[in-house]
């Protein structure tokens, strides 16, 4: 239905309302009111205004009929329109108050909504408002293929074992030390060295140990999570894990802790065993893993 036809339809309703209102008026006034109202209807601008005028005429009919019924003398129609005895005992309360217009608008809105729901327009409107659901796949950033290439900043990303008073200075880290992990002083949570050990060198991640980047959880990268995770591992003389690694301390998220445990497990066989007087022995020790996006 075009808008022009819609307005014609509204005008048709206005005319029918006036015909209906005039028929309900007292017989002596019916023809006069119909012709007068139709003439004045044509003077109204806009279909909405004409519809409003016609609705007002319906209300006017009620008032006129009421006053006519209260008249003491019958109405005597004349071409001059004189001789009517209509007494005013009724308030001239306007029919189209703001409240009435609001009520009509709300009623029309409800009717439109019910019509739309009945015609199945709800899902279409929802599609227009919400829009089609799209899945966006976020590609992870490309990873470095080199597992153990040291960088110039590796001085701040190495694993340093906890200081021990009786242990000589730690040897320089091999060039294939995992990157992204920074050693910081760890509180001594391992048993103190035995008294009869003359020279004990604590083990740690050795040659071929996996890179931290390979175990940096993707979700943590997207969320820009970073932190330190201290992992306790028990390693035999050949650098293999003898038990499940455990988290000793963590400043990061649970995702980073999970990544640290996977890294620790993947490094089995690549740990440097603790040596006592140069002989590798089974031992447990903690080491820290730093997850830092700056190293990526």
């Amino acid at each position, binding site marked *: 239905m075009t808008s022009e036809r819609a307005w014609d339809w509204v005008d048709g309703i206005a005319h029918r309302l006036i015909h209906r209102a005039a028929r309900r008026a007292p017989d002596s006034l019916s023809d006069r009111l119909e012709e007068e109202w139709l003439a004045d209807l044509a003077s109204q601008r806009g279909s909405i205004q004409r519809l409003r005028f*016609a609705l007002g005429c319906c209300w006017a009919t009620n008032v006129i009929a009421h006053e006519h019924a209260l008249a003491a003398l019958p109405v005597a129609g004349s071409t001059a329109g004189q001789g009517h005895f209509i007494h*005013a005992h009724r308030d001239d309360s306007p029919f189209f108050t703001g409240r009435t217009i609001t009520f009509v608008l709300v009623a029309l809105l409800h009717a439109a909504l019910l019509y739309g729901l009945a015609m199945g327009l709800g899902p279409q409107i929802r599609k227009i408002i919400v829009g089609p659901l799209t899945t966006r796949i976020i590609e992870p950033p490309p990873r470095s293929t080199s597992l153990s290439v040291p960088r110039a900043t590796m001085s701040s990303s190495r694993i340093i074992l906890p200081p021990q008073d009786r242990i000589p200075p730690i040897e320089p880290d091999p060039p294939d030390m995992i990157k992204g992990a920074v050693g910081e002083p760890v509180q001594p949570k391992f048993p103190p060295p035995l008294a009869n050990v003359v020279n004990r060198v604590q083990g740690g991640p050795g040659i071929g140990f996996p890179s931290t980047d390979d175990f940096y959880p993707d979700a943590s990268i997207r969320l820009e999570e970073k932190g330190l995770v201290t992992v306790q591992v028990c390693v035999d003389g050949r650098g293999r894990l003898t038990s499940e690694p455990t988290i000793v301390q963590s400043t990061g998220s649970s995702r980073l802790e999970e990544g640290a445990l996977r890294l620790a497990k993947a490094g089995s066989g690549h740990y440097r065993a603790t040596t006592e007087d140069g002989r590798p022995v089974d031992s447990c020790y903690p080491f820290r893993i730093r997850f830092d996006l700056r190293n990526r």
Partner: protein
Amino acid sequence: MSKRDRDVRMSLQTLKVLEAFLENPTDELSGADVLQRCRLASGTLYPILLRLESAGWFVSRWESIDPSSAGRPRRRFYRLTPTGLRRASEVFAGFGRGVLA
């Protein structure tokens, strides 16, 4: 003052209608003209016009055209009677003296 005069209730809307006619008492106004001047609803205006006409304040007549040749209905014109003019003037003068306030 006749009984019919006393029966005309001076509501705010009635005063607006009278004021529109008093601007130029000799003018004839249709209902559409009064609607435009007074900004009243049609449901309010026409009972007032009929009421004032019944009370003898207004007279009305049909527009002098042939509806069939003009292609539209005739309009109804209203005009103040001498009695209506006097009474309406008294009403507004009374407002000025605070009598009907």
